[in-house]
């Protein structure tokens, strides 16, 4: 093995190293584990830190792509059906509507059923009155409406389930906060990956027989680290906003060519309105803006007038990693939603694969194709099992489901089990369960990690207040034992703020002002030093 001596830090051996902890990477992890293969998955941040956590959780029926991209539409239809069968607990099979409103192109609307038929998508025409009966929030200006089998999917739950199942099957490992720095390539193969633990600064060395690049928007960079230039992505930033209460029962799509603010997706107790599309050159500092929020609201009103008076609790952004075909124009709306599997063999590597592009809805298929390639290379002849094997739904990973924590708390009925997150009713016992058992518990759990694995910080306070109570609890349980814990809390509230500021008006402002008063005027989180945990010395010593 062509390993090199490394500085102090752990060394891991695995059959397959997967880079990227989104739906696809964790999907590959589970796919391979179902074939009996041990995997180690790294992410430079944490699960779903990229597009898998920055989308509206729409499980596409395919209707949205029926007019422009029949292949993707049919793929969505098939995959949506499979996921509904194997992961029902992650899915709200709420159904969907496509509606055209005054001003939209009637001919485009009239052709919709025909496009759906070509892609095999169930589509029923209903009268505008019937549509408003199904969804009273719809505008009176709706002139055409169709039902389709859209659904909502919890992308966090899916990812957690994938990792959890892989852990159970082959003791596969998740290493969050582990950033790939370089590959050691020798004799036409990647021999090891040299990574850095972004929290401790330690070097982490991983020896693997196969390496899968499922880094989403970062896949181009990861491929380049392996000396491969065949992966070309277009970065399309999309922003969405979350309402404080669920607006429609179903997914509501605007029946027109894709544009801003034309999809409203329920997410348990809330709804998500999206999505903008803007080509960006860099993946750094991707945050929603006031201008994007204003556009989403203005467009959303045409379909659902009450959006004008809806309280939005948060905005967020993701970057769609779109495949750029040679010579294609750089329009994110028109670029393909399909995916590609690169085997990199023509680039001289025998044990490296990149899976890129695609959609949340098709992650399982992406994982299947990747799994087939990797298994074959490993000489493993087990077939893919993800089409039929249900996700096991473990206790430690149910906390992202809206309403699960309060039901659990009531059922458990322990008077000493304090509620730490009041908006989402998350009790201390839930935090303890996550810290001990949730995927990622291999390394230290922080407030950020808990938030990814639960509803903490997702309610109307957006973590401003509950983060402080959870922090105290983590100190009590000695998960935190130094000023590092409080710095983690500071970083958490600073991150949540980026999503709150663009939707901050009305009822938000009293809360935001109070939060800032607690965080800064009282606790001095704005003054925390980054080293040694000491606050800066007091100033004012001028002569």
């Amino acid at each position, binding site marked *: 093995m062509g390993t090199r001596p490394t500085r102090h830090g752990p060394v891991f051996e695995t059959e397959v190293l997967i880079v990227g902890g989104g739906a696809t990477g964790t999907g590959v992890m589970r796919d391979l584990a179902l074939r009996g293969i041990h995997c180690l998955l790294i992410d430079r941040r944490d699960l779903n830190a990229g597009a898998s956590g920055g989308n509206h959780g729409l499980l596409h029926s395919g209707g949205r792509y029926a007019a422009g991209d029949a292949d993707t539409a049919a793929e969505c239809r098939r995959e949506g059906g499979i996921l509904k069968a194997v992961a029902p607990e992650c899915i709200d099979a709420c159904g969907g509507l496509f509606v055209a409103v005054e001003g939209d192109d009637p001919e485009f609307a009239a052709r919709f059923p025909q496009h759906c038929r070509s892609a095999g998508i169930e589509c029923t025409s209903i009268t505008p009155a019937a549509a408003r009966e199904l969804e009273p929030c719809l505008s009176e200006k709706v002139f055409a409406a169709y039902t389709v089998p859209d659904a909502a999917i919890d992308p966090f739950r899916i990812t957690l389930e994938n990792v959890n199942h892989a852990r159970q099957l082959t003791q596969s490992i998740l290493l969050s906060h582990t950033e790939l720095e370089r590959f050691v390539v020798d004799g036409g193969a990647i021999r090891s990956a040299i990574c850095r633990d972004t929290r401790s600064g330690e070097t982490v060395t991983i020896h693997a027989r196969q390496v899968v690049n499922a880094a989403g928007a970062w896949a181009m960079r990861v491929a380049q680290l392996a000396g491969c230039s065949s992966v070309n992505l277009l970065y399309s930033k999309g922003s969405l906003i979350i309402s404080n209460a669920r607006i429609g029962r179903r997914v509501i799509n605007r029946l027109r060519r894709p544009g801003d603010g034309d999809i409203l997706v329920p997410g348990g107790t809330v709804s998500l309105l999206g999505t903008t599309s803007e080509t960006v050159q860099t993946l750094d500092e991707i945050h929603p803006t006031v*201008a994007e929020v204003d556009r989403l609201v203005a467009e959303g009103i045409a379909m659902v007038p009450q959006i004008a008076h809806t309280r939005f609790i948060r905005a967020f952004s993701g970057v769609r990693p779109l495949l750029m075909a040679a010579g294609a124009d750089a329009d994110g709306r028109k670029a393909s939603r399909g995916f590609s599997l690169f085997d990199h063999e023509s680039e001289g590597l025998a044990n490296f694969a990149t899976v890129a592009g695609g959609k949340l809805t098709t992650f399982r298929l992406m994982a299947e194709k990747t799994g087939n390639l990797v298994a074959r290379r490993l000489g493993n002849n087990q077939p893919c099992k993800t089409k039929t094997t249900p996700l096991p739904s473990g206790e430690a990973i149910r906390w992202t489901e809206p309403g699960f924590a309060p039901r659990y708390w009531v059922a458990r009925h322990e008077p000493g089990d304090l509620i730490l997150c009041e908006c989402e009713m998350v009790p201390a016992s839930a935090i303890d369960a996550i810290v001990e058992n949730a995927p990622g518990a291999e390394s230290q759990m922080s407030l950020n990690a808990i938030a990814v694995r639960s509803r903490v910080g997702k309610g109307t306070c957006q973590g401003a207040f509950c983060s402080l109570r959870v922090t105290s609890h983590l100190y009590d349980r000695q998960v935190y034992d130094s000023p590092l814990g409080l710095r983690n809390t500071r970083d958490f*509230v600073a991150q949540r703020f980026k999503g709150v500021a663009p939707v901050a*008006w009305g009822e938000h402002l009293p809360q935001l*002002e109070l939060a800032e008063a607690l965080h800064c*005027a*009282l606790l*001095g989180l704005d003054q925390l030093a980054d080293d040694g945990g000491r*606050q800066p010395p007091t*100033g*004012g010593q001028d002569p």
Partner: protein
Amino acid sequence: MIKQPRRHRTELLVIGSGLAGMAASLFALERGVGVAQVGNSGVIAFTTGYLDLLGHDGRGFVDDPWQALVRLREDEPRHPLANIAENDIRVAFTSFTRTLTEMGLGYTAPGQRNLLALTPAGTLKPTLSLPLTMQPAIPAMARGLDTLVVDFIGLNGFSAREVVANLAPRWPGLRALRIGFPDMDSGAEVYAEVMARAMEVPATRQRLAERVAPLLGSAQALGLPAILGVHRPDHVHRELQSMLGVPVFEIPTMPPAVPGVRLRELFESTLPQRGVALEPQHRIKRLELLPQGVSAQLEDAYGEVTIEAAAAVLATGRFTSGGLSADPNGIRETLVNLAVVQPEGRADWYRPDYFDPRGHAINRSGVTVDQQWRPLDAAGKPTHPRLFAAGSLLAHQDWIRQRCGAGVAIATAYKAVGSAAQAVRGRQE
């Protein structure tokens, strides 16, 4: 119940029941001006009890707030505190803390330097004056005393371990311990305010002391969450210290908390005794500006109330207390629709980085005033000859980042009441 309209007349109407409103009423009493005060005093429970004058100068915490005020006058000439003479600020601050102490809530006398007070997270906060129940933490930390910090089973959001872990780098002699509070140790959630009221019962104090005493070991001081009584905290504090034989200090819990409740209940019980016609649970529905003064309408359980006053001090605060509100298109003052200086558009309200040391522009929006502390209209003219404004409603200050909330509240209330008294009585300062 027969509801009938009632009508009061007074010299000065104070609108708002936060620190600025309370201070305004006290200053009006000192000047012998007849005063009525209206406001639903919810937000004062969110104060920590610490009274800051100026704790941060944009670069870091300041040690000498008076020195920092000199620089503030140069750097931020529109800041409300930059427009008040140092002596007036001293007189106002000292008078306010002395009055609180006389009324039964002991405060340290404001000195030349800021004190570094403890927070519930174990960080330190520069402040000018603090309750006597919290003061012993200052010398204990300065001397690095072996100190026990106790918290309670079931008290949500306060962790002695957190306090100790964060203070340890500068105060190594700290240790944490969790105990049950007498009669509230079933494991169920307990509330600081309930514990504080229980601590007013001598037997409870005695039993708590008996539980803590054997745990002190080598500890030379004891820290507790702020639960030492609501109405007579200084008494409760003294008793506990004498029972335990070591200095005891309170650490504030996350607001709303006992230190804020103490201030609220103190004002609500003592201001009427001192002659303020206080309507603490109500909000003014409408304020009319008349040639001879103001007329305010509110409604209480017995019906409509009209208060006519020769002058008014508006101390309605910012967004949290409802003095300001905002829709996507702009920020407005809620009672009189006064002109509000504000950033051009919503995109400028907040900076991208929450903890940007320059603070957010929205926090410096607010009402501007003339030299007499009268709100200015869009043309820069006083809105009304006898309408004055005080407190955090004022523009060009960021009390959150500058740690100057109490300073702005007290000093501007002092000045606004001074001007109002002059307008009402036509007498000279």
